[in-house]
């Protein structure tokens, strides 16, 4: 996958860190100190459709040229997460019990075009 730069236009992963102190949640969330709420953004033109991230191999470049030339049914392709992992939280519930849980698929590690 590709991480977004300042002027990325193609499909990439935009990092976004939420510091629990900044939103006033540090009193009830014991660990971690924040949440990497990364998200996928950017264009998925037809000739890169179906390739997670931006593949750079020669074979893919040729494939892309063929796709662009054929421009068959111009279907949409979306920039979506291709790899995600859980968010482990240790927090106080409203009865001040201490709860540890792993919320699946909460952190996006990489993006790609459908």
């Amino acid at each position: 996958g590709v991480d977004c730069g300042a002027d990325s236009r193609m499909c990439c992963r935009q990092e976004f860190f939420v510091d629990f102190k900044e939103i006033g949640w540090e009193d009830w969330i014991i660990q971690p100190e924040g949440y990497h709420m990364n998200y996928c953004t950017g264009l998925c033109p037809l000739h890169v459709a179906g390739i997670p991230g931006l593949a750079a191999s020669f074979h893919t470049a040729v494939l892309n040229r063929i796709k662009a030339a054929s421009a068959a049914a111009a279907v949409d392709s979306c920039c979506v997460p291709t790899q995600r992992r859980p968010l482990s939280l240790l927090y106080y519930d409203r009865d001040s019990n201490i709860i540890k849980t792993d919320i699946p698929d909460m952190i996006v590690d990489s993006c790609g075009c459908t």
Partner: protein
Amino acid sequence: EAKGSGCPVCGVASLAPGAQRDALLELAKQSILAKLRLPARPGVPQPPSRGALLTALRRMRAQRSDPATASPGMLRDGRVPSRPGMGLQEYEILSFAESGPSTSHRVHLHFRFSQEVARSTEILQATLYLFWAAPGAQPITVRLLQPDPAGPNMTVASETRLEVQRSGWTTLDVGATLQSLFGQETPRLTVELEVPKDWGTPLPSNHSDSHWPFVVAQAQARTPHRLHRR
């Protein structure tokens, strides 16, 4: 995609940078609360004393590393927790006792659990940890009470008689009782400890003591009911 469609961050890209950050922070809050099944963030917690928390964590680690010798008076009904479901969200809950109405020879302890967790999970295993402060041998009856659906009283869910030989930790399996409580309106476990008259309370003197009773429960998200239609 059109703003407000199924894609939560799409509409954000068109906002001004400052507003964009606020919108994303709000989205992060909603996302975490939704996954924890909380309607709103909990109020400011009353954390347990540091000593009680450290002692509980040490006991949990000791129990996990060598359950056979973790503590005298180990009581289990021999149940093996059902294998945690693959991919279902799992929870580990540590709940410290609240003191209930007590006399010189009868002590009540309450363990509260939030409805959000109780409604959306099923108990895999739950263990009550009790520390006996009395130095010598002592007969103790431990009763697990639960609200009587038919009225205001409590019914005895289980009763265990212990002959405690010396001061130290004892554990009691409370999984079945907690599982049935999780199906009720107020998931609250009440433990009654009774000793013969004039024997004096078997527990540490007060709440801040680092040997205060606690319950450790492992739970997992209830499997979503799948309806099959033919």
